[in-house]
């Protein structure tokens, strides 16, 4: 490093530590321009989701020290985490509530991207990376909810086995017969703690790289057209980052309050072959469809929805961002959204139904 850059670096950081860090890490490099509208909550939902994932990683690593992924020991080990491990109940509750938030913010983030047309050229590929992240997120929720091996988990596993059977060779990984040496629960734990987090890391790296590459999409004003905006705008990324962390901390505060008031639930040890519980909200809406179409609905409905989401950047290729100029796509999406919500409400009110067998 030349003398002049050294002086420049030492001027930018104010404290000694700041200067030391600046010289070695060049942190001031994140002070690039970003558009002002990117600092509003709808445009920070992705960042809040990412913040939530960091909480999940830390709490998940702690829980994994005490969780026993063997079918004979799983439920007992969760009881032990709650009753015997230092901060175990709290850590588990934070993990549980953060997972609920992260799923919600990821979905809202996707709706924001959909509503503002942020998936348009040149951001189509990042939309697909985002769909990958959504699949990973839902995969994490599903595998995570099975691990506690209570009644609800065993029922989820039964649905898992049924859909695996329908999928045939494609579903082989999800069936108990796939591996004689490792129980299905243990393999799902591997999925939850190793395979899916690895995929998440790959996808989020690509996601963030592409965001930096294209810049945040322009504000969806009536006349706005889709453009790359990298390095443009009147705000700066360090301000954007502070906001992101700010909303992240607000979420964390709420998660702590919920953990204290409503600790993560655990049911009785699971007994296979009956259906007494309902799944969590992110899967619950599927159940009226299952009633109508049988178990195959659990594959057909998500596959159709995923397919429609994949079609979005292909169907809507105009350069306009304003929702008013994309009425047909958005009303179609709104219709589907309403059906999903009604489905969820119906499922929540219905008595538990026997689907299995």
């Amino acid at each position, binding site marked *: 490093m030349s003398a002049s850059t050294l002086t420049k670096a030492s001027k930018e950081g104010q404290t000694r530590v700041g200067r*030391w860090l600046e010289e070695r890490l060049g942190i001031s490099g994140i002070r690039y321009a970003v558009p002002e509208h990117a600092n509003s909550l709808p445009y920070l939902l992705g960042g809040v989701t990412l913040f939530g994932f960091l909480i999940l990683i830390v709490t998940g690593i702690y829980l994994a020290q005490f969780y026993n992924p063997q079918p004979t020991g799983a439920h007992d080990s969760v009881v*032990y985490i709650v009753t*015997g491990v230092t901060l175990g109940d709290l850590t588990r509750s934070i993990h549980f509530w953060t997972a609920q938030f992260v799923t919600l913010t990821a979905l809202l983030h996707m709706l924001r991207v959909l509503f503002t047309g942020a998936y348009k050229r040149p951001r189509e590929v990042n939309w697909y990376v985002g769909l990958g992240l959504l699949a990973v997120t839902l995969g994490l929720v599903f595998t995570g909810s099975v691990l506690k091996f209570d009644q609800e988990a065993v029922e989820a596993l039964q649905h898992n086995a049924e859909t695996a059977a329908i999928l045939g060779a494609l579903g082989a990984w999800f069936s108990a017969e796939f591996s004689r040496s490792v129980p299905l629960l243990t393999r799902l734990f591997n999925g939850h703690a190793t395979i899916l987090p690895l995929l998440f890391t790959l996808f989020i790296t690509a996601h963030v790289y592409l965001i930096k590459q294209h810049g945040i999409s322009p504000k969806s004003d009536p006349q706005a057209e889709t453009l790359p905006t990298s390095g443009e705008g009147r705000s700066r990324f360090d301000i954007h980052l502070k906001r992101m962390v700010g909303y992240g901390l607000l979420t*964390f*505060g709420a998660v702590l309050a919920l953990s204290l008031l409503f600790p993560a639930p*655990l*049911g009785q040890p699971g*007994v296979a072959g009956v259906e007494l519980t309902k799944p969590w909200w992110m899967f619950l809406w599927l159940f009226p469809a299952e009633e109508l179409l049988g178990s195959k609905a659990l594959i057909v409905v998500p596959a159709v929805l995923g397919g429609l989401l994949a079609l979005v950047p292909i169907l809507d290729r105009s350069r306009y961002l304003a929702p008013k100029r994309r009425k047909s796509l958005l009303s179609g999406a709104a219709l589907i959204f309403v059906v999903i919500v009604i489905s969820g409400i119906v499922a929540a009110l219905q008595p538990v139904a026997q689907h299995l067998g």
Partner: protein
Amino acid sequence: MKKQLISFLILFVALALTPVGLALAHGEPVIAVQPTIVAAGEEIIVIGAEMEAGEAFVITLEGMTDSILLGEAAVVEEGDDGSFEVTFTIPADTPPGSYTIRAATDEETAVADVTITAPVEAHTDNQSAPAPEPSAAPLDLARPQSTAQNVGVIITALVSLGLGLWLVRR
């Protein structure tokens, strides 16, 4: 700057090596269990080393929910150090699972892992455990209630919310 870095590195290495130093200086007791996988009702040998002759260790078998007292082991002199080798029987009704064997005096403790499997012989009384009733009810858990912890959580939540609000409004 260079000096600062070097002193930081020295401090870091020193801190990292502290436990090793302590262990070497005091000769921390260690135990081993043979075999490491044993069926309930069978015997294990617990071997202790790096101990002081004359000490008596209490040996317990600790599971996820409870701990079973196996017995005591008296340390005998062997060379510079003391050691013991004692055989215990794992109670036949111990549920299969992962356990730790703990050898402890008032000041010192050493642990080793052991996995217990189902008893080798089938129950002769022909009484299988009653099949559990499936239930959707939540489990009645004895969640630990600590006021200090709750206060800590509330303070952390408030700090987090305050800091969050401050960052969002900047």
